[in-house]
Each structure stands twice: as structure tokens, then as C-alpha cells.
């Protein structure tokens, strides 16, 4: 980690009481700042909060919100909620998988795109829904998906 990264990390730690109860909050802030959980940040979290590293690791791997590998510049999330499923989210995902050449959870080699599947984002009325870098797209026709992604 660069010195700058360490400063960011310290700023996050300063926000929380140094006990085990802060673990998830701290990891969420790290995820938000770095878009994934760098290994060194997890080790530092364990030391700072006085929590065993194994516990940090099990929390980091338990929750969907955390990613242990760096993610791409554009994060494409396809909703797999029930409404989206019956309105053809699978087809949409197929198109994105073949178009970007990656499976959900993966990042393209050039680090441009990460494809993710999420469980219901609460916009079921507009199913199927796709979120590109936090912008919601509703009623996405499967043949339009890739174009929308590349446009953003």
C-alpha cells in the first residue's frame, strides 16, 4: 500500500471505536474507498480493532458486499431478483457474459469491466434491471444491454 492509501485507511479507522463491533462498518468503508478489500488493509484492520485475522477473513468472505479482488473501472451489476428472473434476467446476463467475455464475479483483463450478479436491488417494477456504475437501467431488452454498458 502506498503512503496515501495508508492515510485513507487511518482516516477510516478514526471514524470507529476500536472494537470488534466496528468490523463490518470498517470493511464497508474500505470496500467503498478501494472498491475491494486489499489484503494489507484486512491485516491492518485485524491489528487495529484487535480482532483475529481469521475473523476478519471470514466476515470478508461471508458478505456479498465485499470483494477480495480488484474490480474494473465500470461495474456492471445484473439484478437476479425474482421479478427480474421471470422477466428474463438470465438472457440479459448471457448477453453480457458473451459480450464482455467474463463470468459473473470476474473482471476483464484490461480492468475495464467487472460483471456482478446481485440479489434484488428493489427496483422490481422496472425488471429486468441492470446497474452500471450505480446508474439504474430499467426494462433492459437483452440485445440492448451490451450497448448500454459500452456507452457509459
Amino acid at each position, binding site marked *: 500500500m502506498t503512503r496515501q492509501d495508508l492515510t485513507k485507511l487511518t482516516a477510516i479507522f478514526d471514524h470507529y471505536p476500536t472494537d470488534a463491533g466496528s468490523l463490518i462498518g470498517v470493511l464497508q468503508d474500505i470496500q467503498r474507498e478501494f472498491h475491494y478489500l486489499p*489484503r494489507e488493509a484486512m491485516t491492518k484492520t485485524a491489528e487495529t480493532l484487535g480482532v483475529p485475522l*481469521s475473523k*476478519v*477473513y471470514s466476515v470478508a468472505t*461471508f458478505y456479498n458486499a465485499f470483494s477480495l479482488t480488484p474490480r474494473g473501472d465500470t461495474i456492471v451489476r445484473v439484478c437476479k431478483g425474482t421479478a427480474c428472473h421471470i422477466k428474463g434476467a438470465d438472457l440479459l446476463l448471457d448477453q453480457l457474459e458473451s459480450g464482455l467475455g467474463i463470468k459473473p464475479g470476474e473482471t476483464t483483463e484490461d480492468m475495464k469491466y467487472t460483471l456482478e450478479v446481485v440479489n434484488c436491488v428493489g427496483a422490481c417494477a422496472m425488471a429486468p434491471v441492470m446497474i452500471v456504475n450505480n446508474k439504474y437501467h430499467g426494462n433492459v431488452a437483452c440485445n440492448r444491454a451490451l450497448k448500454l454498458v459500452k456507452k457509459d
Partner: protein
Amino acid sequence: MVHITINGKVVKAAEGEMLLTVLKREGIDIPALCHHEAIEPTGNCRLCMVEISRAEWEGWKKHVTSCLYPVEDGLIVNTHTPEVIEIRKTIIDLQLANCPDSDVIQKMAEEYGIYKTSYETVPEGDNCIMCYACTRICEVLGKSAISAVMRGHKKVIAPPFGEEPPDCIGCLACAQICPTNVIPWTDTDSTRTIWKKTFDLITCTSCGKAVITKDFAEYLMAQRQIPKEYFETCDECKRMATARKMGEIVTKAQEAAL
């Protein structure tokens, strides 16, 4: 003191005692894979389920894990109803699909007349039944070097990042408590390896056999104030030494008596 009825027989038990303890004391055979005296019960394996009821429930009954259920006065317990047997068989059947190579599970399955699982064998199975005994004992020891990682069916017991666990002291408690013996470890003359981490061994000053890892000895010296000399000889040689000393005392006494 409370009274409970187990399979029709009234039995005395201490208030708040866990039902499984009472059942075992009564000599009733209840399978229980994740239960161990040294650790708090967590109810992972679900094998110890029994049927409970109470007179005032008017025939209503439910199934509970006996390892976690504190007894109370008036409890009516049935340990071998067809439903209970069906639960046990199904769970063992599922475990057999998950751990096809585990002899402990195979033996258990045979006892229930299952020779081949009804399900598809889990391709990524590693014979771990996910009872958490290892992580719990590690926590009890104050180290928590390993933990359950991931979620759902992908869950495995592993050290952080799947690499040498920094907090591990090579005490082998996890490997020894494991009911299905799936945590591998190896010793050479002077080293011990577990979870991919290799430790220096303290060897017995009299016979040269492994006594304990240096890290574990240091941990015990610091945490439990155990003197350093304690770790210089192995248990067997300690016993021999004691026996020898006893022998000497006896001989001396005999000599004195003569």
C-alpha cells in the same frame, strides 16, 4: 432437580442441564458429531435431534437438538420415533454424499442401513462435515487461527487467505478434536507441519521424541505460567521418571526397614 420422561421412563436431571447429557447418562444411543465436552454446543450437525412434548401441549410436539436444549420439569422426550429416525437417516445420507471417503461417516451410515448415498456425490467434497469443532477449540485456546470462510455450500474451514495462519501455534487441538479426522498434519524429527505452517519442535531431552512446538510452549509459558522445564521431556519420559523416582523411594524405604 427436575423430572423428565424419556421414552416412557421418568428420569431425574439437574435444572438447566443439556438434554443430550441426560440422554447419554441414561445410556441412550444418540449420534452427535458436533458435540464435544470441551466446547460450547452450536448445533451444526443436527444429528442429536429428538422429539419433545409436554402434557399441556395436548399432543403437539416438536423436534429439538438435544445438545442445546436445557431440560425443564415435565418434559416428555422420545428419542427413537419414526420421524426422528428419518431425520437422522436423511442427515447421514446427505453427509455420505458430502464426505464419501470418511470412514467415520461410512460406519455411521452402515449402522442405519445406508450403504450408498441416495444423492449425487458432492464433487468438491473434502470430507469435512462442517461441525466447527476445530474453530471452536481454537477459539477456546485463545488463538482463533482458523475460521469458517465463505457462505452456504461453498463454506470451508480454512486459515486466512488459505495460507499459513499467522496465529497458529501448532498445538494440534483442531486435528485432535476433529470427529472425522480430516485435518492433516505431519511431523519430522524436529519439525511439525499443519495448515501449511511448519514449526520447530522441542524434543525430549531423554528420548529425543517430539514434545511440543516451540510456539505452543512459549504460549503456555506466557499465558498459563507453566515452567520451561515442563516442556523438556515428553509425557512418556515424565511418567518413566516419576516411576523411577517412586521405585527409588520404595527401595530406599525397604532398605531402611531392613
